[in-house]
């Protein structure tokens, strides 16, 4: 996935001279995860550059650059360090188009390596999606695979509106065969990773792979589940969500973030609104508990496991 994201940035930089890439350590080092590796050498220090450690400043510079007709792609080094930028994101990046009556667009992408699962120190395993998804004016996307990461990143950079691009760190080293392409589902569309009429599993980001694993093991016992990778949390693909749940009348929603007011709350509410008459069982959430993200030694207990997901499906199907 790192290579796909790197290719996405490279192609965006090559395709549009107004695209800029900047953030902490994105220059010579290539970013702490190497997503920007080689880009400064290829495109020069004017277009790919390091910044001081100043997340609010990084996000705020995006506003000024966008006003000057640039397309800034900023990197926040880690989820837990993105919070100083929230004021700029919420107060300006999200609102600028509205407050200027559409006269000033914010084609800004903020990439944030996010979520847990890499045995990181504290502040390195946060799930910040709800903060952004609840902020009107932002789009929020989370790729789950390398090819989709490339596609979503290119589409995010082309988008006239600001996009918060959450990269699942634990999938950075995952591989996928195929052509890098922007063809395929756009922002605002979910992907059906697997069909099945016993139960729908709804997920995004790193949980997609776990849900596929759970679905595979359930299939061995004859329970065929559909797996819906949302990809785009804002806008949410309500139509696909409705269709997949109506098929089986059963749904399990999975995310890493703490349960209360996590994305699952919105997803379940949507399911109830859109598919109430089709439901055969209560919708179940498999999520992180409502505690701060734990140290590495407790990470596996915290994160939704294949077993927890499969158990939830079994309970739902057997309801």
């Amino acid at each position, binding site marked *: 996935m790192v290579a796909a994201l790197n290719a996405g940035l490279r192609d965006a930089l090559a395709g549009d001279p107004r695209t800029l890439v900047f953030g902490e350590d994105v220059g010579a080092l290539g970013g702490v995860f190497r997503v920007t590796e080689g880009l400064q050498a290829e495109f020069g220090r004017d277009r790919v550059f390091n910044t001081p450690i100043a997340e609010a400043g990084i996000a705020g510079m995006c506003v000024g*650059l966008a006003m000057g007709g640039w397309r800034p792609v900023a990197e926040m080094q880690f989820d837990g360090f993105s919070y100083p930028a929230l004021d700029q994101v919420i107060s300006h990046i999200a609102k600028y188009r509205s407050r200027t009556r559409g006269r000033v667009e914010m084609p800004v992408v903020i990439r944030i390596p996010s979520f847990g699962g890499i045995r990181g120190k504290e502040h390195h395993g946060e799930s910040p999606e709800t903060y952004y998804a609840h902020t009107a004016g932002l789009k929020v996307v989370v790729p789950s695979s390398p090819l989709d990461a490339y596609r979503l990143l290119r589409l995010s950079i082309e988008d006239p509106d600001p996009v918060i691009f959450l990269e699942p760190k634990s999938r950075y080293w995952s591989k996928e065969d195929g052509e890098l392409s922007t063809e395929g589902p756009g922002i605002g569309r979910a992907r059906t990773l697997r069909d099945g009429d016993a139960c729908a599993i709804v997920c995004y980001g790193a949980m997609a792979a776990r849900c596929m694993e759970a679905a595979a093991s359930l299939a061995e016992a004859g329970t065929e589940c559909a797996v819906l990778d949302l990809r785009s949390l804002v806008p949410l693909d309500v139509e696909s969500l409705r269709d997949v749940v109506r098929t089986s009348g059963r749904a399990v929603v999975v995310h890493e973030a703490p349960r209360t007011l996590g994305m699952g709350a919105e997803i379940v509410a949507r399911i109830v609104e859109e598919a109430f008459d089709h439901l055969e069982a209560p919708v179940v959430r498999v999520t992180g508990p409502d505690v701060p993200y734990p140290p590495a030694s407790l990470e596996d207990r915290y994160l939704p496991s294949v077993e927890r997901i499969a158990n939830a499906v079994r309970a739902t199907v057997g309801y």
Partner: protein
Amino acid sequence: MSTETARADVPMVQLVAPDGSAMGDTEVGLTADERRELLRLMIRTRRLDRECWSLQRQGELTVYPPYEGQEAAQVGSAFALGPGDFVFPSFRELAAAVVRGVDVVEYLQYHRGTWHGGPYDPIASRFAPICVPVATQIVHAVGWALGSKLDGAGTCALAYFGDGSASEGDFHEGANMAAVFGAPVILFCQNNGWAISVPGREQYGAPIAARAAGYGIPGVRVDGNDVLAVYTVTRRAVERAQAGDGPTLIEAMTYRIGAHSTADDATRYREEAEVQAWRARDPIARYQAFLLGAGTIDEAFVAASEAEAETWVAEIRAGITALGAPPDAELFEFAFADPPAPLLEQRRELIGDA
């Protein structure tokens, strides 16, 4: 007399004394017409500020932040900019907006409550939206200026902020990044003595201009009620920025004669004697006396300027009071370039298919 921390280690640029006498070389590269224009603009903007206060009291505007006393700081600095330069204001810079040619009725939509911070065209007027979150506009200006540098445009950005804003992290991040990137930007602090009710001595331990040294950029303190001095130091910073020599921090020492806003009661935290002392340093009376003494204007010019301002604000009042609420559909119009399906559904639910 001042609420400013008593520190004399940063010299203050002054060209015209409060009594209107010259204190230095007042040949600052302005023509006689331009000198008169500075006065005309200050007379206009003061009249406008008082009209806005009245409009608020009459229920025609929502909360309004007055700038009386700060006309020289705003007019002198905005006048020093070139047409391609870009202003990033805070929320008290209506006088600067007038100088930049922003449509005043459109601007006042913000205070009318008919739209948020960017009701005028920010790109065409080179004047960014009104910015209320304290100090956030400073980093916007740095970003814009960096873009201008990358374009080789030879233009600069100017960010207005107050003494209160200088305590925010965004001031520091902006100043540091401006220095690191050599961005053509002017960080223009209007130190008006008070952050709502908190005086300078409770906000900082050293002059704000002195911080520039720590960032490795020039810092200048100027008498903010001396329009010629403000113009001169800003013009120097503009030329520096446009020549590729990077940012400048300017601290203009001025005073907010009125309250923080129409919702504030300044008598609760400051003495009337202090206000009177600053009235004696009034930027308009001082400059008017200077121009009269130099023979650049006569009393008739002042009278004509005041009459002209009167006519002008009457037009603005008529424009403002005619402004109604925008159509309901505009609630949904601008959030996204292409409103997504879930938002269109909410639109139908709230206002139908109108």
